[in-house]
């Protein structure tokens, strides 16, 4: 069994606790402030209208959600902002209703200065499980650096939480040493 130095263990525990809490805090702050979303939802991958897909989720054919077409920097309420492929997405937008979708007129249609959403979600299936497929995340090209950031954050969290737990067991005197692997 491994011998444990309590002072070293206390330092290890405190250090990784601070790192872990800082990482959690940073992720929660960037997420709740909308920074992460803005950074993540990067540009439009096709021509269409940038929308907040959550706001039209309850629409039906009988009671469509009517989004006014406006040119502005932020999606605030029932608004559809025209975007072209490669444009930076407006704030709060989380999906793009494509021109192709609007032309087909099955789920949404342009009427004058409005976009009418009639079928906001449809059931799809993957690996034998069904789920609601919406306009959300559609027509969006994400920031590739956001991908690298996600992986870096998860790896940093994994290391810090792993070493935090190791520091904790050392601190409470739970001796965990290498095990014998005899056949």
């Amino acid at each position, binding site marked *: 069994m491994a011998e444990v130095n309590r002072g070293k263990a206390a330092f290890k525990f405190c250090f990784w606790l601070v790192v872990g809490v800082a990482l959690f805090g940073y992720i929660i702050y960037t997420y709740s402030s909308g920074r992460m*979303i803005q950074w993540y939802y990067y540009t439009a991958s096709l021509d269409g209208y940038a929308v907040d897909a959550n706001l039209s989720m309850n629409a039906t054919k009988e009671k469509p959600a009517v989004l006014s077409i406006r040119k502005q920097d932020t999606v605030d309420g029932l608004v559809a902002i025209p975007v072209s492929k490669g444009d930076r997405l407006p704030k709060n937008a989380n999906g793009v209703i494509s021109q192709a979708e609007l032309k087909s007129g099955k789920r949404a249609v342009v009427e004058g200065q409005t976009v009418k959403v009639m079928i906001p979600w449809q059931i799809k299936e*993957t690996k034998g499980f069904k789920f609601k497929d*919406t306009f959300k995340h559609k027509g969006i090209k994400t920031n590739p650096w956001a991908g690298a950031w996600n992986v870096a954050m*998860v790896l940093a969290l*994994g290391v810090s939480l792993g070493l935090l*737990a*190791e520091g904790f067991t050392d601190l409470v005197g739970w001796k965990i*040493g290498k*095990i014998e692997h005899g056949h």
Partner: protein
Amino acid sequence: MFDFAIAGVQAPFFLLVLVGLTVGIVGGFIGVGGGYMVTPALIVFGFPGYMASGIDMTHICGKGLVSTVRHRQLGNIDWTLALSMIAGTMLGVELGIRLLVYFKNLGISGVVLLMTSVALMFTLFLYTQFETRRAHKKMAEMEKAGEKLGRELQTSNLPKFFQTIPLAPIIRCRAARVIVSMWVIVLVGMVTGVLAGFLGVGGGFVRVPALVYVVGASTHIAVGTDLVEIVISGAYGALRHSIEGNVDMMAVLFMIAGAMFGAQVGSIATSYVRGPAIRYILSYSLILATLGAALRLTYVLTGQSVEWLSLTAVVLTLGEMIFLCLFISSLVWFAVRRRGGKWVPDWVAPLVI
């Protein structure tokens, strides 16, 4: 309920923590990522399928690392083995993804994927179960005869065959106490990588038996070493999913918070048992996952008209996590009792230390 802004769903966050905790226990103990359990659970909570896969893969990377840190302390990682396998694994994963795209273009990816899962997991279950039963019986006999039992005992002759392949370079894996051709390890990495990439999972449930029955590593080493592979393939998968926009970091955060505790329990629990106990849990997890996949396959083949098949598959998958956690906890409990000189059932005695 928590509003997951990126995924666009409202879901109870404590359930995500709970899933992270249970999969952390199982994953830390048998060395799997648990993708086949987490993805269905997230879909049940309302996450779209693509988001469920992305969140799952990203959380597996973080959870795998938490478990890896603890397994490193326990001496369950053979770094030579892990590093030799990486190139094969990465190549295999890429080939597996291309194979999946090929079947997707033919329009039969769903059926082929489920059929392969069922056939592979059932075969692995049968082999692991029969071999482990033989090892268990032998250990029970040795204990009765008063012989000293080691941490590991496996009765398969396959490792002997693979260890005698005289293809240079031959490498020595010190922690695993194995001398084997590097090409055997690379091949194991590649084949398990193809399956992982094709099935869209971390591949632990194939890699752990492969490391035990092909390379000849002990089960504990196979678990720890496989977790290193899971971290690497998980990071690659997480990067790909993140670039596609399929990851909600808040959901990942809640699951990792649960996994932090679960992974400790699962990893430390390995020090209370002998190799066959881990292989038993692995085989039970395989048969339960096979049943779930078989139900989903039947559901797909019947034109998705029999709704209860899909529902039963979900219930079975979620029930599996709880069952395996209880099984692992009971083994640790019996091990503690045995260490204290108290009574434990006869069938448990050779499995615990």
